[in-house]
């Protein structure tokens, strides 16, 4: 689950580097995320690039700016991801997908390769939990599956796969996956980390 942390462009950051660093406080974010200072600055560059007219370079006066879901989802890192909306939504505070820069950094921090498995499992669960009820029920699984396969499976096949999945992973037998079930299953997956 490594979204390529950043692919392009450092150009914005170069201007007024020093003042700017103090303003977005990369050191503070260091403690909260898995990024180094350089990476955080680069991320801010990307964030700024998304909407230059919305995002200020000056963080003293107006720290509450948020980018809407539609803008973030169009980043090249997320554009091809079938779960992009869910990812952004589960990291936003209001659940609607509006991200402040803090949350933006948080998102990439969790998705980056440095984040530990447990943390990723927690957020993966959130991402797959389409109706936010803390359980992965059949509808969630169906949605997941349809996104994964671009709805190329027949309804019967989808049904079968979902049933099988629940049957495999459901330990307490309540016909839906709680976080414990999910964690148990995902912790043994050979290629979950990537």
């Amino acid at each position: 689950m490594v979204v390529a942390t950043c692919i392009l462009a450092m150009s914005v950051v170069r201007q007024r580097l020093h003042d700017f660093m103090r303003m977005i406080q990369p050191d503070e974010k260091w403690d909260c995320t898995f990024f180094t200072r350089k990476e955080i600055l680069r991320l801010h560059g990307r964030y700024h690039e998304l909407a230059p007219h919305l995002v200020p370079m000056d963080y003293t006066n107006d720290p509450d700016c948020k980018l809407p879901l539609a803008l973030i989802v169009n980043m090249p890192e997320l554009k091809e991801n079938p779960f992009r909306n869910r990812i952004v939504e589960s990291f936003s505070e209001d659940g609607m997908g509006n991200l402040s820069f803090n949350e933006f950094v948080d998102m990439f921090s969790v998705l980056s390769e440095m984040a530990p498995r447990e943390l990723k499992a927690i957020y993966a669960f959130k991402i797959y939990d389409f109706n936010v009820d803390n359980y992965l029920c059949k509808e969630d699984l169906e949605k997941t599956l349809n996104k994964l396969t671009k709805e190329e499976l027949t309804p019967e096949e989808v049904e079968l796969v979902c049933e099988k999945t629940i049957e495999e992973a459901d330990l307490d037998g309540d016909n839906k996956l709680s976080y414990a079930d999910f964690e148990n299953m995902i912790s043994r997956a050979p290629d979950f980390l990537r």
Partner: protein
Amino acid sequence: MQVRPEKRERGKRRRAKNDQEAKGRERDEEEQTKIKSAKTTKTRKKEKSRKTEEEEGEGESEERNTKRKKKHGSAKKEEKEEDGGKRTVKEKAQDVKKKKHKKVVETSSEQETSEESSEDNEEEDNEEKEVRPESLSPEELEKLKEAVDERKKLIQGLRGKPWPMKKKLVTLRESQEFVEKYEGALGKGKGRKLYAYKVMMTKKWMKFQRDFENFKTACIPWEMKIKEIESHFGSSVASYFIFLRWMYGINMILFGLTFGLVMVPEALMGRPYGSIPRKTVPRAEEASAMDFAVLWDWGGYAQYSVLFYGYYNSQRAIGWLKFRMPLSYFLVGVGTVAYSYMVVIRTMARNANESGVGDDNSFNFSWKMFTSWDYLIGNPETADNKFASITTSFKEAILEEQESRKDDNIHLTRFLRVLANFLVLCCLAGSGYLIYFVVRRSQKFALDGLENHTWWERNEVNMVMSLLGMFCPMLFDVISTLENYHPRVALQWQLGRIFALFLGNLYTFIIALMDEINLKREEEKIIKFNITMWEASLYNSTVSENSTAPPVTIHPADVPRGPCWETMVGQEFVRLIISDTMTTYITLLIGDFLRAVLVRFLNYCWCWDLEAGFPSYSEFDVSGNVLGLIFNQGMIWMGAFYAPCLPALNVLRLHVSMYLQCWAVMCCNVPQERVFKASGSNNFYMAMLLVILFLSTLPAIYTIVTIPPSFDCGPFSGKKRMFDVIHETLESDFPAWFSKVFSYASNPGLVLPFILLMVLAIYYLQSTSKSYKEANVELKKKLQTQNEENKKKNKRAALKAQMDLEEARKAASQAAEQQNNNASLQEEETDGEENHGSNQRLHHSKNGRNPPPAAGEQECHPPATRAPVPRTYHHGNHGAPGYLPGFSRQSEPRMYRVPSLQRH
């Protein structure tokens, strides 16, 4: 700096708040106890089912109690006065309350949902801050220290918390403030200067670490390139480049060792070129020694240079540093191998830890569902391929599930598989024989003299080896279609076969080389004899002139010399590497680039679509490339002892291929159709590398140990065996007692028990790991049976509930009939509708939390709705849900969560 004032202001506000809080604290406590008692009454009613949970909670709460005895001492006393019957319930309530505190303070990985709000935090912080720094008894101080440490831990563990960012930042700021404030207080005391100093140092150390980390991330080479490839082609192609980078790092270190400890000292401090025979080009070759053709073949001046074994002098210590050249040469040779072993094994162990246990097939569908997407993909084409491959994998899995191994004609498959393996074996044997034949032929050519032959005849061995390495894998690919394996299995087979091919080729090559070594050694004997004759004659001639003439000085170029098989081996390896590199690059250019260009531009004037149809663009062949890299490395390890320049060459090659392949991948390859993920096979490659390392050190060690070094070239000339250097050093450079100790330590009486001990330790470790594995399997079995039991139980419960429901319905309908009868008897005017309405109202008042059942159902059985409702409520508390008819599934979790919300 701009943040500071803000912070300070915040701190002030907080302090004011604290004071207020302190005043109202007592009142608060009273209120809390009240709330608690209310809670107990609430919880007591339905507590039976949760007893088991409670017992778990008790253990935890006890722990926490010891931690926070002081704060909650008063509350606890009150509770103790209460009678024992209520106690468990009380503790439960306390537990509920304390969970809030625990969440903030505890840094261990307790997993919390995001439900808890940040207000809990605030409350907690305020309470924490009521500890005044002015009134410090040592006990309190200790506690404060603990609290500070806890905060520090919290700061460290913060990044691993699944909290929203805002909360993280708030917590971080608060904790930092706390730490700063109280750390200062702790440091003010008389005897605590040391503590303050320590704190300061740790701060500086942290800062340094951060800067260092920054520096490190800035120094990782090719990061952006690899990320770009990653997003275009998925993680498996990127994993090749990461592997390449890793190899590059290792080779850099090997290069540093050989260059710094062997080549540079010899070049700087050793005798200069032309001073002794082994360091001069012989007279016969002098004319052509600077020709490019000869140099390209690593003859001439290249052969008599620091690049090869033969150039090094056997002088024990060189230069003003008294550098022990032969010893250094030997130790570097051993060191490179040892270092490589260490690195490979360490990486393997780390990978094994990461990958965990993922072999069993019990979560087939779940894994496919949740982990099949490659989150690195950022390219539409790759994404499309990935979607397609996921779909097909699901379809395959479904088919497998449905047919459940309906094996069609297993005999045919078996026969085909055997046939395929037979064919592959034939290929391997054929290629082995071909190489052996070619090497033999080349020896004949060499005896004849190379000048009489064509270019092809001179380079036959390398070319044949490269061509075999190119075409045999294709053949294997064709053969493997016979076998009808699953693609992943097929890939492994393919890899194994190519591995066997390369290995076989390499070993035939080595065996042929051994033959050549033996030939050279016989030649050496003759030459040695001739030289003694020559020297004698020289001596005689000088003697006969009776020392009147000046002593004859012979130019070192004229001195006859032995063939020096070590240099020959080194040359062979260098040539092999060069030709291998060349073929790799040329196939890259022709097979990828030219093909891409042709397909791209001929497409305008061709009868079918070249891009989508037959030739199309090439894919990046991860496994083949990784294998090539591994074998290349094997050759380096094998030859590095006889040609110290090999690591340098390899570094160069890897550097170039990094750029070249990055470019080629981005410019002329298309994403793979079957997009594999990387992590599964990572250790597979590492295991291959380990095997190659072992197999390549084997012949090197064999030659070092068994064959005596040449008499007139190389650092070990004049010794019986190469490892005599160690002995010599021990005798002459170390004090006598040391060599004595060493000889004692190396006598079999001590070595054998030591080996025995090691074997026993290995046996012990292996058996323990086996037993762990067994225990693991046992546990898994238990879990499964429990799972099944649970399911059965639930089914039974659901059935029972259904039966009850039916009964209740029947009873209710009977009652309703009776009622209806009664009603019709008593009042004939009242409608059924009113009756219905009252029922509904009743229902609403009865169950406040439950959502009302579907209206349709109510209309069908108007009076029946009352009966099942309390039943479901109980049911929910038991923790065994079954879907009751008439209730939507969505309502289930909400009912579930009612108790859990209370607990928070």
